[in-house]
């Protein structure tokens, strides 16, 4: 019998709500078959459910626990994550509750040796980074899921076995009153770093585990410091190691520090050790005799691992179940959001019978590619933060020392943050368009660039669960051949919307579903477009084709490719 914790977890800043376990299915007369069952109600499982629901695809989410996750865990969310969360309807809450920021500082021997400034364009709705504790974010997602009639969230339901057969999988589920069975045409494994499903299928992650282990401690303290990333290299109290500080909402501060090599997690998390080290770090930021209260602490190790394939027959891996990434570039949850946003539309259109045979497979190709790129990139910052060998230690220490006076080594402090992945080599990209002729604007595979359209209005606000054709025009109608193809594609069930970007203050454009007034020419110039140009955007906001002059046939061919028919 599965007995998840029934008492609310303790937290200074978050009121945990314990939900009743779903037990109605135990002893049911029949085994239910559902189109999609998602295992794990972490940020990625919940976002996947919301994303699928936008296409009308219902899902069941099975969650072993009866409440959201313990401790702050992922606290930094990137702009791209916010754009994805906007699509599933929770960005406003996250922005209101979170703290936006854009500066990162690296210190060595009390000197600031590097300052990173993440660009913030006036055309962006969301700041480069937003800090919010993971349980708070999960709560917004849980609320949105519970308000959605297409999503059934089953708390206290733990998957214990999985068998695949033909076009479905059977799950054994344990609950506080006994077990039951559930069949699913598709199982989404979003069950986190220790994925039970990964184990049940006997799959192995590939890659490297790094030596360094970090203590993560959240304390409540009032500090007169801005919301910026603070990194301290080789501080006097922790020689050779690195310490990070981040502000979280509610006067909570995250202090991450590396453990000395020979220390066990138990030693590191003892009350005396924590107090002494946290006080030593607070002294460095100028606080003497500090008063603080501990909220949560844990030990985390840097790993860079991925499954080589995310789709195994009817089981699809996403988020931490698919890969484990070093946290230094805030890549854990932020990568997961990009995974599930890539998956959502592909699975939905596959279930609806609109997709070609290659569409779902492109999820695995695109996201495994992204994970491998992240692993290579993350390895560089990880090797600088926690040098793995004596040679790395020496060179890193030499760089620290030189950085006090030598400008040229300072970029080595650069913290390579999670970036939106460019699917430049995707099989879904159009082969015969004018991508290469453009000198500006988002290229094939990249996410669309946001554009400010009004005081509180941005291009991304106009987007939803559909392909979009951004058609730049000075005329009053979209050309007939394009309209005809759009019509025909829609009749086949392809979700496709035409947004006319107008240069002449034309009001209504026949053949367009929406009009974006661009008489200032701002959007046009940022996108390198002119009258007759067009961008085709996938339902996950990544560009798959762009033309300087679009015709109807070219549009059809690009959509056929983008649906995985090649």
């Amino acid at each position, binding site marked *: 019998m599965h007995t998840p914790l029934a008492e609310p977890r303790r937290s200074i800043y978050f009121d945990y709500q314990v939900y009743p376990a779903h037990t109605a299915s135990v002893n049911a007369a029949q085994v239910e078959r559902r189109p999609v069952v998602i295992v794990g109600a972490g940020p990625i499982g919940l976002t996947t459910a919301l994303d699928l629901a936008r296409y009308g695809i219902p899902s069941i989410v099975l969650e072993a626990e009866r409440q959201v996750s313990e401790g702050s865990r992922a606290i930094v969310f990137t702009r791209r994550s916010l754009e994805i969360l906007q699509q599933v309807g929770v960005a406003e809450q996250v922005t209101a509750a979170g703290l936006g920021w854009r500066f990162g500082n690296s210190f060595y021997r009390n000197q600031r040796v590097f300052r990173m400034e993440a660009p913030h364009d006036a055309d962006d709705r969301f700041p480069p980074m937003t800090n919010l504790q993971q349980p708070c974010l999960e709560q917004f997602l849980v609320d949105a899921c519970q308000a959605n009639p297409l999503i059934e969230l089953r708390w206290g339901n733990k998957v214990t076995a999985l068998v695949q057969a033909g076009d479905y999988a059977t799950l054994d589920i344990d609950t506080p009153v006994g077990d039951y069975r559930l069949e699913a045409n598709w199982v989404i494994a979003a069950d986190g770093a220790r994925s039970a499903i990964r184990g049940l299928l006997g799959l192995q992650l590939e890659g490297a585990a790094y030596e360094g282990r970090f203590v993560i401690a959240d304390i409540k303290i009032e500090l007169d410091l801005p919301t910026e990333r603070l990194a301290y290299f080789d501080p006097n109290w922790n020689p050779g190691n690195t310490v990070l500080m981040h502000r979280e909402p509610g006067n909570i501060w995250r202090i991450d520090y590396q453990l000395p090599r020979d220390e066990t997690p138990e030693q590191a998390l003892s009350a005396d050790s924590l107090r002494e080290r946290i006080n030593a770090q607070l002294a460095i930021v100028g606080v003497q005799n500090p008063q603080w209260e501990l909220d949560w602490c844990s030990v985390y190790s840097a790993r860079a691992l991925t499954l080589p394939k995310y789709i195994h027959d009817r089981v699809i891996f996403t988020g931490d179940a698919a890969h484990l990434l070093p946290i230094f570039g805030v890549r854990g949850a932020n990568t997961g959001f990009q995974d599930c946003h890539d998956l959502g539309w592909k699975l939905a259109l596959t279930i609806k019978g609109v997709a070609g045979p290659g569409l779902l497979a492109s999820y695995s190709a695109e996201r495994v590619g992204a994970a491998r790129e992240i692993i290579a990139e993350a390895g560089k910052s990880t090797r600088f933060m926690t040098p793995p060998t004596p040679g790395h230690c*020496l*060179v890193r*220490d*030499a*760089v620290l*020392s*030189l950085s006090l006076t*030598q400008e*040229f*080594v300072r970029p080595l402090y650069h913290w390579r943050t999670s970036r939106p992945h460019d699917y430049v080599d995707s099989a879904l990209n159009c082969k015969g368009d004018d991508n290469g002729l453009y000198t500006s604007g988002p290229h094939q595979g990249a996410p669309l660039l946001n554009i400010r359209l009004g005081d509180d209005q941005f291009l991304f606000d106009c987007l939803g669960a559909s392909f979009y054709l951004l058609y730049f025009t000075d005329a009053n109608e979209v050309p007939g051949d394009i309209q005809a193809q759009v019509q025909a594609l829609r009749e086949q069930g392809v979700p496709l919307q035409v947004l006319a970007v107008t240069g002449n203050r034309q009001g209504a454009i026949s053949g367009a579903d929406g009009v974006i007034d661009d008489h200032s020419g701002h959007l046009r110039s940022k996108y390198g477009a002119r009258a007759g140009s067009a961008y085709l955007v996938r339902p996950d906001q990544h560009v798959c084709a762009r033309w300087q002059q679009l015709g109807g046939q070219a549009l059809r061919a690009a959509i056929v490719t983008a649906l995985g028919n090649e």
Partner: protein
Amino acid sequence: MDNKQLTITDLETVYDQLADALDQAAEGKRELFLVKLALLSAQALGDAEQFMTLTRTALLDL
């Protein structure tokens, strides 16, 4: 490799300076000093490939 070469006199100067600097660096800091010097020299050299060749040469006959 570049044609620019040290004269015998220059080489003798470098020899003595390097030895003096190594003696000035505190015991236990000599490795660090040498790595810093290597990085500064690489920057002055401005050629990663040549630096690689030099690294391989220095690894010979240790």
